[in-house]
């Protein structure tokens, strides 16, 4: 009924929340929120995901800091919106992040402690810090002036990809690919994998869109496979309405970073299209 009324309008928060209530069962949402648990399921089902070096559950696990590799990513297991994610490289006695911010041993410990204390995962809820492999992007996705690891957000409705975008980190987003932190989003033609539109919410001067020299007819490599992996992930998670974050690593292998049970709606602006319309189309014709 509401679909008919709002058929030509974008998907709003109220309707999105309704779809989440209807399509995403609570256990599935809990699973998606916990990156460590979902990674185990991915590995068990032969889906590639970045390797986990350590899981830090409490302060006593901090002794593991000495065993950290020379480069890694710190992630809060239950973080959202890219908060709390730090990419680090060892440089002499300390670490640096992609924009050159220095992390001494104290800063590293303080950041991990914040992650464990739940600073990035809701109100004072204890969390796990994941120390995982740092992934470098595929050569095919690197253009002049690109920074960090771009990822593909594939929006799935009832386990079928309906909309997708490519997200490029910027200086402002400190190497993170989340649009709220200032990354650049590009619309993707869901059938062909061609780049359609380029948008950014926040970036004004630090990183001009024009500087990212992307060919006009650029087509994402391995598009059909990316769609299949995204679809498989949403099935594994049990989420009928989800956003799957997929990356291509330096060896051009498809890896899944995480799945989001409450995906943001900015993707509509990036693709200049309504999710409601895509959902309707998805019901009418099964694509491919």
């Amino acid at each position, binding site marked *: 009924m*509401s679909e008919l*009324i*709002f058929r*030509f*309008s*974008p998907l*709003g*928060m*109220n*309707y999105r929340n*309704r779809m989440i209530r209807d399509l995403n069962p609570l256990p599935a949402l809990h699973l998606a929120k916990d990156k460590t648990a979902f990674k185990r399921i991915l590995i068990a089902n032969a889906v590639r995901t970045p390797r986990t070096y350590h899981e830090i559950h409490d302060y006593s696990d901090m002794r593991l800091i000495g065993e950290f590799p020379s480069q890694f990513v710190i992630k809060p297991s239950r973080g959202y*919106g890219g*908060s*709390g994610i730090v990419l680090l490289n060892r440089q002499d006695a300390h670490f640096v992040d992609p924009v050159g911010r220095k992390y001494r041993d*104290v*800063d590293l410990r*303080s950041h991990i*402690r*914040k992650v464990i*204390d*739940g*600073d*990035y995962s809701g109100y*004072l809820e204890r969390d796990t810090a994941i120390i995982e492999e740092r992934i470098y992007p595929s050569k095919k996705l690197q253009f002049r002036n690109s920074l960090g690891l771009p990822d593909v957000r594939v929006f799935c409705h009832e386990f079928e990809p309906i909309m997708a975008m490519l997200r490029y980190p910027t200086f402002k987003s400190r190497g993170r690919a989340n649009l*709220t*932190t200032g990354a650049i989003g590009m619309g993707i033609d869901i059938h062909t994998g061609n780049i359609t539109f380029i948008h950014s919410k*926040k970036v004004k001067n630090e990183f001009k869109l024009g500087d990212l020299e992307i060919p006009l007819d650029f087509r994402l490599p391995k598009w059909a496979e990316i769609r299949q992996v995204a679809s498989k992930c949403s099935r594994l998670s049990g989420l009928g309405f989800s956003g799957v974050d997929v990356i291509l690593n330096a060896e051009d292998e498809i890896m899944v970073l995480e799945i989001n049970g409450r995906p943001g*709606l900015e993707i*509509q*602006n990036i693709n*200049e*299209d*309504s999710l409601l*319309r895509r959902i309707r189309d998805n019901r009418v014709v099964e694509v491919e």
Partner: protein
Amino acid sequence: MIKKVLLTAVAALAIVAAFLWALSAIVGVQSGSARVIGFGENIVLITPIGEKQIAARIDTGADFSSIDTELALSLGYKPDSTRRKTIRTELGVEQRDVVDIKYRLAGREIASEATVADRSSLSTRMIVGRADLSGFLVDPSEEFLGGARKGPPPGIVVVGALERIQLHSPAGNIEISARVDSGSEFSAIDRAFAMAVGLEPDENRKRTISTTRGAVDLPTVESGLTLGTAEVASTATVADRAALTHRMLLGREDLKGFLIDPAREFVVSGASDATPLSSIPFLRLQSAGVARIIIIIPMLGAVVVLLKLLAGVRTFGIFGPVVIALSILSLRIIPGLAVYVSLLTAGIAMKLLVLDRLKLAHMSEFSLIMFVLVLALVGVTTFPLGLTLSFTDVFFPLIITSHLIEQASRSMEEHSLGEFVPVMVFTLISSVALAYYASFLIEQPSSVLWAIFILSMLAVIVAGYYSGLRLSELVRFRFLKRTHVHE
């Protein structure tokens, strides 16, 4: 380590000082804009049968306004015996019916309630009590000023509606709290208290005092007293004040040269632990009764929910704005907001400037923020700003602000100031709007209140089923809308 701790302490003190300075500036502006009225004023009653001008006594000694029974009935008011008020007078405690009244005083329209009493033996048929006098200054030596003057003239001492005075008695100087009463010509003192401190009533020099139950002859007593820095030679009436809260009241005769601010207490005597301040709108909140306040809380919450679901207004939580609104109401709008904004600024400044550098554990940060906020509030109550705060005035702000600072500092850390500021601004704006809505609700008769209660419930249910766009999303997805309309 010691350097860091010192740095924290210095920064905390600097923030508290800045906070006090900002607050004193705001409070100064507040009292400067008050209208000055006399102890008698002509008011225009806006009644069910039209407007009527009557002379009223401006009575800082009374909590609430009161109107003569006969006059009330002749003007078409219907006394509501279901919400009576307990009134303490020199004659004892009595229950009085209440009417809702609306009137103009010195150019300001006031909607309030008045107790109904037989005032046929008194010189004025109506008194205007403290609950209606917020924002006015009362001159106890003049009448019919009409509010033409604004603010206290330089050099004139402003006293509150309750002050601590030094009473010079044969038993020594005794500090007591006295009601500052523009409604009474002479000061009065409790008989038993006067005898106890050695002030012997002079039965040969009696005075005739009119009360609601007729005139009585009462003895007097002479004594000196200190109000603030002024020495006053007073001849007080000796009466039985056992039913009243304060042993003494100061009448107009002893208040010449002062101005009275009915909304404040202990202005010249500083903060006191004697009696907690009940600022004026809060009096009305209290008089509204617990049940009324409790039932408006979900109604205010419903407004926030509707704002979120239909308009997409982002606030800190649903009941955040509600509780802020209630405490703003108890503090009056401007000082209430001032307290909030300065507490928030102090806390966030503390968090961003100091705590983030110290890299403390999360919980000890939270605890330190509480310390700074309490320090700031204690500063307000002891600093000679003339602003006194009661427990209820500070309790809610303290709890809510520390929670808000937690949320706010986190959202500032992860995102930018640009994302935090609108949420904060919307929270404060909707709190002020809710405060106005709440004061509107409190004054409604019970039937209307319950009707709005049911309607709010239904509105929340309907909104829960609404799955269309929020108002803010029309802006967020404006480009999409356009492309699809043409499809």
